[in-house]
């Protein structure tokens, strides 16, 4: 089964992202929301990319913009909240890392 990982905290502040990365499988997807957007600039983000090169990664565009987090679209796909709702139904379950 597949899991949608909803990452809400920053790895600069908390340990949740490390656990998320340890748990994530290649068929899962990661969505960075709230302070989770800061992880796009954390070294662990590269660790994740190296471990799972083809994994789907999204971030809520508004949440990143609110925090002045600039990301290459090749790193993570910007989405709106409506798409997070759709993603919820595309995966078997959800883990909220907060």
């Amino acid at each position: 089964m597949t899991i949608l990982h909803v990452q809400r905290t920053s790895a600069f502040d908390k340990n949740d992202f490390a656990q998320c990365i340890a748990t994530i499988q290649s068929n899962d997807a990661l969505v960075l929301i709230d302070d989770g957007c800061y992880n796009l600039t954390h070294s662990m983000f590269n660790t994740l990319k190296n471990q799972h090169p083809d994994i789907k990664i999204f971030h809520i565009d508004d949440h990143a913009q609110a925090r002045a987090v600039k990301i290459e679209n090749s790193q993570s796909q910007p989405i709106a909240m409506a798409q997070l709702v759709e993603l919820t139904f595309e995966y078997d379950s959800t883990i909220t890392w907060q």
Partner: protein
Amino acid sequence: MLTSSKKIAILNASSTINEASKEALDAALIYGSYEQTTSLFFQGEGVRQLLNNQNVEIVSIKDYLKTMAALEFYDIENIYACKASLAERGLKEEFHLDNVQVLNSDDFSKALHQHQVILRF
């Protein structure tokens, strides 16, 4: 009785000295008492909840760790601990429960992936 074939996972990420860990256990017990298939996962700081020789009553916290031994009456048989989380913290696999399954990260993740509903506290 509810008819649901969903498997529920309660992912515990809080240390013992944290009320979230008691409320996570309460949630697990209620799923169990409604006869929902429920598993407990301990990861990160959560693994501390399993360690023996703790005495939270010294700091006036109700010893809810004792309650974990009653999980069998709630048909909660699968209790998993993340090996890497234990190692990272320099902790030995010495638990106050005897049916804890210690899994490496990949197996821990695979076990978690068997569940349709995952709540993390």
